[in-house]
């Protein structure tokens, strides 16, 4: 740490309550799990560094990186000028020279400002030249925080359409840590969407050390069931699980598949759950048209068509910018009730 001669420090934040379970896992919030992965990897791999706007001294807009500047210093936790496009390009250059940069977008919404560096340069590089581009972009995703049209977006589908990227969307603390470790170690450019609405609202047991690495490209059956599949990812997973709980009490057995990675998709898991239940409801927070749900539906309707016995239903935000007013934002986001309604309608097909 060095550029803080001018800075007066707060008293350090109280350490968060960490519960350790008998098998050595710790109970962490989603946010703590992300930070744990960053810290773990930076401690073990000197090539790893981080950069972004206000990630250093300030600890990031969401305080995900708090304390890392103090631990790793200004060469590894780099506060940058406001330049998303240059930031991603610089990460590519650093990656070329053997470093493993992690870029934080202050909000996922601003990833579009770095678009060309991502989809044109980095994504295509390995195919065109054979040189890998091992970087990670962390992008705080989604709504629910009354952030309005430019602090609530879910832009993952743009990157799913761009050849050469990997895109992950963890929904639990364990996946948040496990996928971030995998993303940092992956030789490809990986976009890691982390859900703002889950940062402090979700806790869970998370393995320490090398345990709990979650492979990119593998979905997870978050709840097994037989009557209907809900395929989802990111924040709505928790709404889907609540809906499944409620349906269970009505004797309906719902399988919830958490994609976890939206590029490349785990097609085997998608087809397996389709075969099992024959009825699929796809849920995501991003707007409907051209979203990831469309790709999932298209894959199923081509490759698991014979196993379907009902229409493929998508539940997503409408095709509007995420609105601010709580009454509008709430109406626009998929939630337990909407999932229940859609599921029941589908079950009665």
């Amino acid at each position: 740490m060095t550029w803080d001669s001018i800075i007066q420090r707060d008293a350090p934040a109280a350490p968060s309550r960490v519960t350790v379970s008998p098998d050595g896992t710790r109970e962490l919030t989603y946010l703590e799990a992300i930070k744990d992965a960053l810290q773990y990897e930076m401690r073990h791999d000197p090539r790893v560094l981080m950069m972004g706007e206000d990630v250093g001294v300030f600890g990031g807009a969401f305080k995900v990186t708090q304390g890392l500047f103090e631990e790793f210093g200004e060469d590894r936790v780099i506060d940058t000028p406001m330049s998303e496009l240059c930031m991603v390009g610089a990460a590519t250059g650093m990656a070329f020279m053997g470093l493993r940069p992690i870029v934080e977008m202050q909000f996922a919404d601003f990833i579009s400002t770095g678009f060309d560096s991502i989809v044109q340069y980095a994504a295509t590089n390995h195919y065109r030249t054979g040189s890998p581009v091992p970087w990670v972009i962390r992008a705080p995703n989604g709504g629910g925080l009354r952030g309005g049209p430019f602090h609530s977006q879910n832009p993952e589908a743009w990157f799913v359409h761009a050849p050469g990227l990997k895109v992950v969307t963890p929904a639990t603390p364990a996946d948040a840590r496990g996928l971030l470790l995998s993303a940092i170690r992956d030789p490809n450019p990986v976009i890691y969407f982390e859900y703002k609405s889950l940062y402090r609202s979700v806790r869970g047991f998370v393995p320490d050390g090398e345990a709990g690495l979650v492979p990119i490209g593998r979905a997870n059956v978050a709840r097994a069931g037989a009557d209907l599949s809900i395929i989802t990812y990111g924040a709505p997973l928790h709404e889907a699980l609540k809906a499944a709980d409620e349906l269970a009490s009505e004797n309906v057995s719902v399988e919830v598949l958490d994609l976890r990675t939206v590029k490349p998709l785990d097609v085997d898991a998608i087809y397996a759950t389709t075969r099992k239940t024959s009825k699929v409801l796809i849920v995501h927070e991003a707007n409907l048209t051209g979203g990831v749900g469309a790709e999932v539906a298209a894959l199923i309707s081509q490759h698991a068509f014979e196993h379907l016995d009902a229409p493929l239903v998508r539940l997503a935000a409408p095709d509007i910018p995420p609105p601010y007013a709580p009454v509008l934002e709430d109406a626009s986001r998929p939630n337990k009730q909407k999932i229940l309604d859609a599921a029941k309608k589908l079950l009665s097909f």
Partner: protein
Amino acid sequence: MEFSPQLLERAHYWMRFTRAFDDRLSALFKQGKLVGGLFSQIGHEAISVGAALALDDDDVIAPLHRDVGAYFVRGMTPARVMSQYLGRETGPSRGRDVNMHGCGDLSLNIVGFISHLPQTLPVAVGIAHAFKLKREPRVAMNFFGDGASSEGLVHEAMNWASVFRVPMIFIVENNRYAYSTPTARQMRVENIVDRAAGYGMPGVVVDGNDFFEVHETTVQVVEHARKGEGPVLIECKTMRMRGHAIHDNMSYVPKELLAEWEQRDPIARLELRLREMGLLDDAKQTELMARVVRDLDAAQAFAENAPFPDPAQLTQGIYAV
């Protein structure tokens, strides 16, 4: 330059009103009546009010998140801005956009900004370009920050404005911080205005906490642009006196720096000058403050009684018809 008493009175009212509006919003936030982000503009009153007062009604202004005063001067009523903050149907975005974002109204010649900084800049340049193409004697004015100055689009917009010699006034509010990032980490120059020369454009630095200097300079620059002599960059030096937004206690800002700038408070300085000029006394001050509170209460009452948007209309208006 002559400053008429009427002008000074307007400036005084709106600077005071803006400050009070800012304080009121913080109070509402603490009461939980306002959710989402809240940006304080304290310390920026001379810039927003001083520059906006240099424009004619026909001119277009594109202010930013710390330019609330400019919206007011240009006719966006406090009741509407307050409605926007409270997510009501009566705000300029009808509850769709948040806080000062998208707080525009083209019928008032105010262009709203979006978060992606500085996306409004080329829009304002295009507006100025339209004035030139249509041979209308109007100008456009756009604000941006020291942080936003690092974004590539600032370069494109300044270059474009200069190549096409459009009637555009760029105002950069250098308030020493972009969120937690001090200007020394944002650029390796002392003055952003040094970049104007690279576009063949005049640039001028003003004390952003001095209403008289801001206003006089913008008046001159507006005239320059209106005469067809092309764009100008004005750098207003100031200090962000609060955190980036209300959640930020700005522990990264040295206390001495804040104390130093406290001494240069734009409103205190304006009022001192007004007293020196014999235009202000205790009675007038009291009267003005009472008017501010009254108008503010009315705005708040309007907003708090205004309806929320109708969720049945959630998906309406995505396309113009």
